[in-house]
C-alpha cells in the first residue's frame, strides 16, 4: 500500500466577529458616561461581549478547538471593580493541554476631557498552577477607576475537540450586547442544552470549509518533487446567539444554587463521523445514552463483579428473609462499611472491588456496588442515573446531563430508592443533594425509564407539650418530640456527633429562656426509625403578667416570629427539597383563680392545588387549654407562580402565632396598670 503522508494546511476562517465592535475602538462618549443610563444602581455593565468558538485542522492531530473572547465593560462604581479581574482555567491531561494566547487589554479613562489608555502588560498577567489538571491565567486591568471602560480579548486553544465548555449567557451584571457564535465542522455533531430562564434564540446556518491535503507519493517522505495536493470541502454548521440587554442574574433567597438559574448553553457530543469512517455515536436517545453509559467499563462491568463481596453477603443473608429484610441488610451493610470521599460521578472512581477493600469510594463506587450486591441477593436492583441539585435538570438525553447514580429495587408492591453514600439515609430516603426531579432507571436488559426521585410522603416534626402554669406566670412542662424521614436526617446530620451536654446547651440556646432538666433521646443511631426526644423543662421568662391579667402566647418557643419570604415578588421556584409537616400539640394547665377572658380564634387555611395548609385550633376544657397547630407543605418545590399565595400563608402563620391568650384573675376590674416585662 502506498504510504500516505497528509500535510494539512488550513484555509483561514473568514472573520466572523461582530461587524461594528473592534478591539481598541471605544467611543469617547462611553468613557465619559457617569452612570448607567437606564439604571443608576448598576455597578458595571458589559457593553459588548463576543465569544467565538471554532475549529481548525491541525496537522497530524485532527481538529482543534479555539475560543476567541472579547469583552468590553463599563465600570460605574467601586463595587464594579471586581469585573476588572479576569480568570481563565486551562485544562490539561497527559500531554494534551489547553493554552491561551493573544491576550490584550486596555483600560480607558476620561482625564481632563481626553481619553487616556493604559495597556495590560505581560507582567500584569499571572500563570498559576491550580492542581494536577488545571492551570489558570489571571489578570486584573490597570488603572481602573469609577467610569473606566475596560476591554480585553484572548484566544483559548484546546486540543480537546469533543468537549466545548459551558458558555454562560448571563452575568451578575447586565450585558448590553453579546454575540456568541459557535462553528462546528460537520464531522462533529453536538446538541445544545439550554439552562436558565432566558429565552435563547439561536440562528442556525451553514458555511463551507476547505482543508488542503498534501500527499506524498514517495515512501521517502521528505524527498522533493513528489507532493500532490488535494482539497477536501466540508460544511461548517454555525449557531449564532445575538442578544441585547441581557438582565443581570439577581440573587434571591431560598434558592438551592443561583448558578442553576444562570442562563447558559452546553454543547453535548452526539456523534462523530469522518468521511469514509464509521459513525461513532455518543448519544441521541435515552436508550443510546444509557447504552453508552452501560458500555463504559466503569459502569456496566462494575455491576457484574461479585466475587469480592460474596463472603460478606452470605453472612448477611439467611433463607427465611423476605425481600425487604434482604434489601435492608444489604443497604445497611454497604452504608456502614463504605465512606464517601465527597466525589460525585455515576461511574466508579477506583472500581468497586478496590473501593470495597479500602472502605472508601465515590458515588459510583458505592452505589454500583450496592446494586451488584442487591442483585446477588436475588432482588431486581437497578442503577438510577440522576443529576444532583447543583448540576441542573436533565431534560435532554445526554451523558453529561447526569452526574450521580443511586440504586433502585423493584418489588411487587412498588419500588425503593437507596443511596449508601450518607451515614444518615435509609431505604427510600435519599440525601438532599440527590433530590432533583427525576432519574433514569436502567434495568438488567438495558432498557430504561424515567422515575421521580422526589419523596412523596411528608417528613414530620411533631411536638407534644404539656405545661403547668403558676399564678406568677412561671411554667414547667414536659415535651415529647418526634422527627421522621428528612427531619430525622437533618437532625442526625446536625446533632449526631454532639455529646448530651453539648446538645443540651445548643438546645437551650436555640430556645432562649428554656431550661431543660432531663433529656432522653432515642433512635439516634437507629437510622430506620424516627428520632425521639423526651424532656422536661422550665421557662425562665415565659409570660407577661400585668397585675390581674396574664398575657400568654400559647405557642411559646414554637412561635414563627418572622416571615422568611420578605421579597414581594420572586422569579425562581421555592425549593423546600421535600414535603413536610410541623405539628404542635400543646396543652396548658392554667393557674388556679384565673379565667380565660380572651382566646384566639381557630382557623384553617390552604394553598391552591393542595400545595400547603395551615391550621390553628384552640379549645378550652375546664382549666386546660388545648392547642393543635399544624403547618404542611406538600410539594418539594413550589413554582414561583404560587409565591404570592405562599407568602400570604406565611404572613398569616406569623400573625396567628403571635396572638395572645388573656387570663384574668377572677373578680378583678380593668384599670390602667403598669406591666412588667414579658414576651
Amino acid at each position, binding site marked *: 500500500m502506498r504510504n500516505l503522508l497528509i500535510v494539512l494546511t488550513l484555509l483561514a476562517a473568514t472573520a466572523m466577529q461582530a461587524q461594528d465592535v473592534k478591539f481598541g475602538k471605544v467611543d469617547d462618549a462611553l468613557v465619559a458616561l457617569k452612570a448607567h443610563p437606564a439604571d443608576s444602581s448598576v455597578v458595571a455593565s458589559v457593553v459588548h461581549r463576543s465569544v467565538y468558538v471554532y475549529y481548525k485542522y491541525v496537522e497530524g492531530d485532527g481538529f482543534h478547538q479555539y475560543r476567541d473572547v472579547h469583552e468590553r465593560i463599563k465600570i460605574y462604581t467601586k463595587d464594579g471593580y471586581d469585573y476588572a479581574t479576569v480568570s481563565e482555567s486551562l485544562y490539561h491531561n497527559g500531554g494534551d493541554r489547553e493554552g491561551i494566547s493573544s491576550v490584550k487589554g486596555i483600560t480607558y479613562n476620561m482625564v481632563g476631557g481626553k481619553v487616556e489608555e493604559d495597556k495590560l502588560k505581560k507582567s500584569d498577567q499571572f500563570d498559576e498552577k491550580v492542581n494536577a489538571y488545571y492551570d489558570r491565567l489571571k489578570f486584573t486591568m490597570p488603572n481602573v477607576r469609577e467610569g473606566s471602560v475596560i476591554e480585553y480579548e484572548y484566544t483559548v486553544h484546546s486540543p480537546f475537540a469533543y468537549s466545548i465548555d459551558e458558555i454562560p449567557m448571563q452575568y451578575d451584571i447586565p450585558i448590553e450586547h453579546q454575540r456568541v457564535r459557535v462553528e462546528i465542522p460537520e464531522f462533529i455533531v453536538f446538541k445544545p442544552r439550554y439552562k436558565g430562564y432566558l429565552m435563547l434564540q439561536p440562528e442556525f446556518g451553514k458555511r463551507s470549509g476547505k482543508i488542503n491535503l498534501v500527499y506524498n507519493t514517495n515512501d521517502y517522505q521528505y524527498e522533493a518533487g513528489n507532493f500532490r495536493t488535494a482539497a477536501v470541502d466540508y460544511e461548517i454548521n454555525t449557531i449564532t446567539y445575538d442578544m441585547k440587554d441581557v438582565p443581570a442574574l439577581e440573587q434571591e433567597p431560598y434558592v438551592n444554587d443561583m448558578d442553576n438559574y444562570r442562563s447558559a448553553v452546553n454543547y453535548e457530543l452526539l456523534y462523530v463521523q469522518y468521511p469514509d469512517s464509521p459513525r461513532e455515536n455518543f448519544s441521541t436517545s435515552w436508550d443510546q445514552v444509557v447504552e453508552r453509559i452501560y458500555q463504559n467499563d466503569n459502569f456496566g462491568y462494575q455491576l457484574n463483579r461479585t466475587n469480592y463481596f460474596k463472603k460478606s453477603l452470605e453472612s448477611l443473608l439467611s433463607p427465611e428473609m423476605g425481600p425487604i429484610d434482604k434489601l435492608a441488610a444489604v443497604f445497611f451493610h454497604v452504608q456502614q462499611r463504605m465512606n464517601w*470521599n465527597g466525589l460525585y460521578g455515576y461511574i466508579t472512581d477506583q472500581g468497586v472491588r478496590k473501593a470495597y477493600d479500602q472502605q472508601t469510594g465515590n458515588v459510583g463506587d458505592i452505589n454500583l456496588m450496592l446494586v451488584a450486591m442487591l442483585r446477588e441477593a436475588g432482588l431486581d436492583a437497578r442503577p438510577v442515573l440522576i443529576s444532583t441539585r447543583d448540576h441542573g435538570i436533565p431534560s435532554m438525553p445526554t451523558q453529561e446531563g447526569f452526574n450521580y447514580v443511586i440504586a433502585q429495587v423493584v418489588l411487587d408492591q412498588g419500588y425503593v430508592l437507596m443511596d449508601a453514600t450518607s451515614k444518615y439515609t435509609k431505604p427510600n430516603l435519599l440525601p438532599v443533594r440527590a433530590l432533583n426531579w427525576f432519574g433514569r432507571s436502567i434495568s438488567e436488559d438495558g432498557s430504561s425509564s424515567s422515575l421521580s426521585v422526589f419523596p412523596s410522603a411528608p417528613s414530620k416534626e411533631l411536638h407534644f407539650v404539656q405545661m403547668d402554669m403558676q399564678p406568677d406566670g412561671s411554667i414547667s412542662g414536659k415535651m415529647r418530640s418526634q422527627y421522621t424521614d428528612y427531619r430525622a436526617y437533618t437532625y442526625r446530620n446536625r446533632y449526631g456527633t454532639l455529646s448530651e451536654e453539648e446538645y443540651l446547651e445548643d438546645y437551650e440556646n436555640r430556645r432562649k429562656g428554656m431550661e431543660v432538666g432531663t433529656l432522653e433521646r432515642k433512635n439516634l443511631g437507629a437510622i430506620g426509625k424516627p428520632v425521639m426526644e423526651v424532656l422536661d423543662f422550665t421557662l425562665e421568662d415565659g409570660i407577661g403578667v400585668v397585675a390581674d391579667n396574664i398575657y400568654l402566647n400559647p405557642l411559646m418557643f414554637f412561635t414563627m416570629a418572622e416571615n422568611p419570604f420578605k421579597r414581594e415578588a420572586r422569579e425562581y421556584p421555592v425549593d423546600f427539597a421535600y414535603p413536610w409537616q410541623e405539628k404542635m400539640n400543646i396543652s396548658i394547665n392554667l393557674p388556679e383563680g384565673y379565667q380565660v377572658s380572651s382566646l384566639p380564634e381557630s382557623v384553617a387555611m390552604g394553598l391552591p392545588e393542595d400545595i400547603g395548609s395551615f391550621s390553628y385550633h384552640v379549645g378550652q376544657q375546664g382549666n386546660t387549654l388545648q392547642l393543635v397547630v399544624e403547618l404542611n407543605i406538600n410539594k418539594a418545590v413550589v413554582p414561583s407562580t404560587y409565591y404570592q399565595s405562599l407568602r400570604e400563608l406565611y404572613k398569616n402563620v406569623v400573625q396567628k402565632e403571635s396572638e395572645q391568650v388573656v387570663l384574668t384573675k377572677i373578680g378583678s376590674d380593668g384599670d390602667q396598670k403598669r406591666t412588667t416585662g414579658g414576651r
Partner: protein
Amino acid sequence: MNRIRILLFGTFFSFLTLAQAQNLEYQALVLPDTLTRHADAIVRQESMVVHIRNPFRMEIEMERAVTVLNGKGDAHALAMVSYNKSRKVGYISAAAYDALGRETQKYKQRDFRDLSAVDGGTLYSDARRLYLDYTPVSYPYTLVVRYTLEDANTAPLPNWYFLSGYRVSTQESRFELRYDSPELRPDFQESHLEGYAIEKESFHNGFRYVGRNLPAIRDESLSPPFTEVAPSVMLRPRRFGYEGIDGEVDTWQDIGKWMHQHMLDGRDALPEATKQKVRTLVQDTRDTLERARRVYRFVQENTRYISVQVGIGGIRPISAIEVDRVKYGDCKGLSNYTKALLDAVGVTAYYVHVEAGQVKSDFKPDFADLAQGNHVILAIPYQGQLHWIDCTSQTIPFGFLGDFTDDRLVHVIDPEGGYLVRTPQYKDEANGQVTEARVRLDAEGTLAGSVEVRTSGIQYDSHYAIQDLKPDDQVAIYRRRWGYLENLQLEDLRFKNDTDSVRFTETLTLKATNYWKKAGNRILLTANAFNRLRYVPDRYRDRTLPFQVLRGYQDREHYQIELPEGYKPEAIPGPVAIESPFGSYRMEVQYLPEEHILEYKREALVREGRYDAEQYEAYRDFHRQVARAESAQAVLIQTQESK
C-alpha cells in the same frame, strides 16, 4: 408503579476481626478521660525539630500523629504542608491507622495533591501547599504525617503551641530547636505553661520542650482567641536571613531600621506628572492635615485593593511607581504609594505594621519580631498627635480606623526605626446609635411614620456601607434589621455621611403591617419598635474560660407612637433602671393623653471589658434583664364595644 414506604427493624453491624499487624501506640479504643473530655481529636504524638544551620538555611523535621474522635476533629488531622520558592518540602509521607492501631493506608509524596494556596483577595501568590485528601473510613482513626522542610529564610521562626486548638488534647508534644552557632540562638517567650506538665531542657546549642497529657480546652462564646489561652512558646530570631538579606535585630527600632534600609528605601519614587497632579490638588492650602485629607481622597478615588504576593513581596511593598501605573496594590503597596504622594506635597507619614482583625492584638513590646503584624497602615504626625489612615479602603473616612485596627499596639516605622504606639480606642459611649421615630399605629395594626438613625464610632463602621448598596439591597438590609416588621415598605431613604466628624445618619419613612398582637378586644404593643436589644449570651452549665466584651456601645431611643383611635391604654410598662459593672440601662414609657401618644425613651450602655469565668453568669443575667425589659408591652383596650 408507586413508590412504597417500608418499615425497617433495627440496624446491622459488621464485626471486625482482630488482625496481627497493629501499632498499639496508636490504638484508640482505650483512651484516658483526661484526653477525651471536650475533645474532637487527640494529638497522640507531635514532634518538631528546627535546626538553624546558618542565617540562610533552616531545616525542619516534623512528625504528627492525631487520633480523630469524630467528624469535627477531621480538620485537626489534615496532612498538609505549605511551601514556596524559598521553602521546599524535602520528604513527605503519611499513614492512616484504625481504632485498633492497625495501619490501613500508606501515602507517599505522589499521593499528595499540589495546590495553589491563593485566597480570595489575592490575584496571585507563589504560596503553594501539598495536601492529602483523606476520607475517614471510621471513627476513631489516627493519621500520621511526617515531612521535612528546608527553608532559605530564618525569619519568621515557627511558634509552638502545645495544644492545636480548642477541643483538641495532647498526649505528647515535643519541640526542639538547634542552631549551629551561638549568634543564631533565638529568643523565646513562654505563655500559659503554668498548670500543664511541660518540661524544658537546655543543652549546648539548643533546647527542647516536652509536654504530656494536656487536656483539651472547650471553646465557649465570648472567650479570648485560642492563641491567648493556649500554652505556647514563641520564638524570634536575633540574627536571620530573609530572601537573601541579612538581618540582626533586637529592638523594635532595629526592625524598623532594617525595614527602612532593605524594604522601603528607594521604593517611593514617583513620576513627575503624578507629583504635579497632587501638588495641584493641594495648592490652595498650607494646612498639613487638609493636604493629607486631599491626598488620601485622591488615593481612595483612584486605586483599589488587589494583592500579588511573590517571594520578597511578603514584606516589601511594590514600588510607588508601579502602583502609579496600574492603580492597584495590596496594603503595603498602597500605603507606600500614599506615603510617597504625601511626601510630594510636604506631608510626612510613617509606614505602620499592625496586626489587623476584629479581635484586638498587641505587638509585644519586649519581643520585637518581624513575624508580628499582617497589615500596613499610615500614621501622619500633626501637632503632637498621630492621625491614622488605612489606604486599602476606598470608603473609610480619613483618620478613622474602625474595628479592623483600633486600640492596639502597632509599630510605627520612621527613618530612625520607630517605636510601638497604641492606635485610637473607640470606647463605650463613643460607639453610639441614636434612633428617633415619630410613627402612628392605626386600628388595623399598620405602623407608619419616620425614623432617623444616627451612628458614630464602631457603630458608624457597621452602618455607613449601606449608602453604596443598590436600592434593592438597602431595602433587604432594613427588612433583615427589622425582621419582625411585617411587609416593611420604605420610602424616601436618605443617608448623610459626615466623614469629618465620622457620623452617619439614615432617615426614612416606613410602613409595616400587623404591628401588634391581638388578644380579643385588647392589643399588645411592643414599645421598642426599632432597636430591640434581645441578645442573651449562651448558657453554660459550667463556664471555664474568661470572657471579653471587645467593644462597648451606647444605644439611645426616643420614639413617639401615636395610638389608634378607639383604643386607650389599659396598662403601660413601668420604668426600668439597671446598673451593673457590665453596663447600664434605663427605660421609661409615658402616655401623653392630649396627643394620644405613647412616648418611649431608653438608654442602654454596654461596657467593653475582660472578665473572669465566675462573672459570666452575672453578665448573662444583665443581658437577660435587658432583653426582658426590651420586650415590654403596652396593653391597649378598645373603648367602644362594637366598631
